């Protein structure tokens, strides 16, 4: 391009243009400096999307460095691949990742959620792995508000429509409501794939002279500025951003899965990369950036959905269900044959070149020629942090001054069981196919889901978890608790946690309070991950989650993977038999301490307060989980259930409901029954055991120096707590099955 041309097409940059790209004036100045001139609109668009928080992690990268990735099981390097992979033995690897689609879902819930599923699945199969499970984690504002209900129904139907159509089971997840998510829902989707280790495909372009092929859907005008405009700044409830939300086509995705996996099986694929945020721009740059080579593509070879699209639009389109791959030119005929079989269009759009440059042509006209390393030199920022004053106040709140609930203990329990955050989520998961592929041994509705690996004894267990109230009250401990709970869910069914993936949903990082939360939460996650020996193998960051009033509570979501060496050694949450002994692992008595109410559902529901200072002792957590797993592996546990949201009594009630078996306490209940029965202190698991196995159980607890106590026995048709309550299990079930 001549200097004259440049001047002609380079408009003076306005504040509005910069905002559209989520680029600051100083970043613009940096680009000008890097180029030695003002950028063309195409160049600026490409810089803007690559330097966005969504693609470049410019606000979070310095903080994420804390995650260690040198665990012997981990097969991928942090952020170099589309997803993280971990060795599970038998020459197999599990590939997994969790990702957010909060902003698109806030604007267009059905398509926003559907494309969340589509995008995360592509991350998995682009690595050569067969997707075998989906999970999700959803947060909405109060369901009584029609707007929140519209968002919830839209998101659930989006997940249902897309996931069911492609035949990947949706085996678990979470649903939680809080005012903090008014108009800014959290939609996190996780996908899991399995691959034999030697078939794992990399995001690489190999050597110069390889062909770059674009496969799948045509490229349209949907999703332009999705990465920058939508995902990387505050939205101000702007409905005009709706065109920036992509539209999904699950049928195309299904064909793309099958054709790409068949292509990978041929052994002729050098590298593969899905087109996600920032579309073709990010995919091409990602492919070559690790190999110190460049690419040359011709935009006239991209199949378009609409006429007269500009190069800018083609490069930034986030049209769904597209994949690029790199092959040797001699393999073109074979690869073409595979995609023809599946009726999936492919186009050779360019080739790799020795110069480490991004070169873009439109037919004969060269539009862009920039060194890759300028594009990837995303500036990173560390904002100042400060512990918010309100946080100290909340943490020091005198919980012991909370009066005991005026409702009776029985009414308190029934009301908690019927509350949207605790009640059964069957009304949601019955809309998802959770059985297809015939691996699902335990589906949704349990602490964790279990999949079998056919023709082996091995089982895989999965859970997602995260409690934003705890993170709001203590970001470090809240982050650690999220990891601990996700892993505890696996331990209660008998699985050993081996890896996690995280999705960090936070508010505006430019606010020092929020950056403090982000930094502390990450530190808590990292500490727990090291202590519990579960490396963080992949993840995603979603910032600028806020509504008109405030930022959301810090919401890190942890997706955890566990292994059962023998899938037959698994237990479920419900009481199994009459006259079994019910034991609380992790405590020698029922708590009488007011601090147990910190961040509890009880305190929120009956007093409208989110106060206190939730804490976790990770040494104790590790020991409690180890005891539970050891006892399960020795076959002496009949049922086990994580004691979490709602506290001990909710945990007992759920075990009664699921097992359709009653319970009667034998332990003394403290006078402040609210602290003891509804407090939510960490590191507790409720198990039921046959009397004859108590001695062996006691020995295991002693070995790991874990406190425990017998709290009652199973049997009968009702939940009986001293003279405080005697509620038929059927009545508990009725309350628990209430729809929000």
């Amino acid at each position, binding site marked *: 391009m001549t200097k004259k041309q440049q001047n002609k097409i380079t408009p003076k940059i306005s504040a509005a243009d910069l905002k559209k790209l989520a680029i600051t004036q100083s970043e613009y100045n940096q680009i000008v400096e890097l180029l030695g001139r003002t950028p063309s609109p195409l160049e600026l668009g490409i810089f803007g999307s690559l330097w966005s928080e969504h693609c470049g992690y410019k606000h979070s990268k310095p903080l994420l460095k804390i995650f260690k990735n040198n665990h012997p099981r981990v097969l991928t390097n942090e952020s170099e691949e589309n997803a993280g992979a971990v060795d599970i033995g038998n020459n197999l690897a599990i590939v997994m990742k969790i990702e957010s689609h909060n902003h698109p879902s806030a604007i267009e819930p059905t398509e926003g959620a559907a494309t969340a599923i589509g995008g995360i699945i592509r991350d998995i199969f682009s690595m050569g792995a067969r997707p075998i499970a989906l999970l999700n984690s959803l947060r909405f504002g109060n369901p009584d508000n029609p707007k929140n209900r519209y968002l919830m129904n839209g998101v659930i139907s989006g997940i249902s429509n897309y996931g069911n159509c492609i035949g990947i089971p949706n085996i678990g997840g979470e649903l939680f409501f809080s005012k903090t998510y008014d108009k800014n829902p959290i939609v996190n989707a996780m996908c899991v794939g399995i691959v034999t280790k030697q078939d794992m495909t990399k995001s690489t372009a190999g050597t110069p002279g390889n062909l770059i092929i674009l496969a799948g859907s045509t490229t349209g005008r949907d999703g332009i500025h999705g990465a920058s405009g939508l995902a990387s700044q505050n939205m101000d409830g702007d409905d005009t951003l709706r065109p920036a939300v992509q539209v999904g086509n699950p049928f195309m995705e299904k064909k793309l899965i099958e054709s790409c996996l068949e292509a990978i099986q041929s052994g002729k694929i050098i590298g593969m990369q899905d087109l996600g945020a920032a579309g073709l721009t990010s995919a091409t740059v990602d492919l070559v950036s690790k190999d110190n080579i460049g690419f040359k593509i011709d935009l006239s070879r991209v199949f378009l959905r609409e006429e007269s699209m500009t190069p800018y639009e083609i490069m930034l389109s986030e049209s769904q269900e597209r994949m690029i791959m790199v092959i040797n030119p001699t393999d073109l005929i074979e690869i073409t044959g595979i995609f023809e079989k599946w009726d999936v269009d492919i186009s050779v759009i360019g080739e790799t070149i020795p110069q480490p440059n991004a070169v873009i042509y439109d037919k004969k006209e060269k539009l862009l020629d920039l060194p890759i390393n300028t594009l990837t030199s995303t500036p990173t920022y560390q904002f100042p942090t400060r512990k918010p004053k309100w946080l100290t106040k909340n943490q020091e709140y005198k919980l012991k001054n909370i009066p005991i609930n005026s409702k009776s203990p029985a009414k308190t329990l029934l009301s908690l069981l019927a509350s949207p955050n605790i009640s059964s989520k069957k009304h949601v998961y019955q*809309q*998802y*196919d959770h059985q297809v592929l*015939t691996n699902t041994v335990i589906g949704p509705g349990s602490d964790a889901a279990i999949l*079998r690996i056919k023709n082996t004894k091995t089982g895989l267990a999965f859970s997602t978890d995260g409690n934003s109230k705890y993170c709001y009250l203590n970001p470090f401990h809240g982050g650690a608790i999220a990891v601990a709970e996700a892993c505890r869910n696996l331990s209660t069914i008998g699985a050993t946690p081996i890896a996690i993936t995280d999705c960090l949903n936070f508010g505006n990082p430019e606010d020092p309070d929020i950056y403090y939360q982000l930094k502390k939460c990450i530190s808590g996650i990292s500490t727990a991950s090291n202590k519990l020996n579960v490396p963080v193998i992949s993840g995603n960051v979603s910032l600028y989650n806020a509504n008109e009033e405030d930022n959301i509570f810090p919401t890190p979501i942890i997706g955890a993977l566990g292994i059962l060496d023998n899938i037959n050694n698994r237990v479920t949450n419900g009481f199994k038999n009459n006259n079994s002994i019910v034991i609380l692992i992790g405590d020698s008595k029922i708590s009488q301490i007011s601090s147990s109410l910190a961040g509890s559902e009880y305190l929120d529901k009956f007093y409208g307060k989110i106060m206190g200072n939730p804490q976790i002792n990770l040494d104790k957590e590790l020991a409690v989980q180890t005891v539970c797993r050891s006892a399960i592996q020795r076959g002496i546990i009949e049922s086990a259930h994580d004691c979490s949201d709602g506290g001990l009594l909710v945990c007992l009630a759920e075990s009664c409901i699921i097992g359709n078996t009653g319970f009667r306490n034998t332990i003394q209940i403290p006078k402040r029954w609210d602290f003891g029965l509804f407090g939510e202190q960490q590191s507790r698991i409720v198990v039921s055991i046959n009397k004859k196995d108590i001695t062996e159980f006691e020995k295991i607890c002693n070995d790991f120096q874990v406190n425990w106590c017998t709290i009652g026995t199973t049997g009968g048709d009702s939940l009986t707590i001293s003279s405080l309550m005697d509620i038929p299990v059927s009545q508990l079930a009725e309350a628990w099955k209430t729809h929000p």
Partner: protein
Amino acid sequence: MNFGIVVYPGTWSDSDCLIAVSDQMGQNASYVWHKNRNFNNIDCLILPGGFSYGDYLRPGAIARFSNIADKIIEFGNLGNPIIGICNGFQILCELDLLPGTLLKNDVMEFRCQWTNLKIVNHNQFFARSEFQKSSLQIPISHGSGRYYADKKTINELEKNQQIIFKYCSSMGEVNSKSNPNGSINNIAGIVNSTGNILGMMPHPERCCDSILGGEDGKYIFSSIIKSIDPSKLLKTSTYH
């Protein structure tokens, strides 16, 4: 015996059916690609679940125009057994091999859950009487499973004993409470007038292994094997 499993783009129960029939029932099973018009030595065709061609327009409506469609019709008209499961049932209706149609569930949502089925009529291919079964537990997974046909057709189906399975309660009661999708007369599976083509919404291939929660699907596959080649029925099979 040889099962052929038809695969359209968008089909997803193909591998589940293959594993159930081969690993659990011990038979030969192979895929029949929708572009392939030659399938020889097939004793029974399975049209599995999924969203053939994305099920845009109407479930099964595009599969009807598939390259393989007339071959399926020919195979059935020769009296060979065909079992259409879920999307397969919808396709059989679109191909006019079975009467009626499958509408959106009355709840207007997808449903994935276990259901109880009452065997209301025995059938020599798919629901044989010698196995002494009167009800089955088999899961459903569909958004459009509400069987519908006009009154005259329903009366004929009832009269000719073409209704094989009806949704029922765990106690065997056929009533509106035990109907998961609003199907007329709780219909879950029907056969054609000659009894060799079965369409059913529940997924028997998902319950041929106890670790998955049940093995009642074996009843249907055992019936097929018994009717075609009894010598091939595995001794280990529950329904021998």
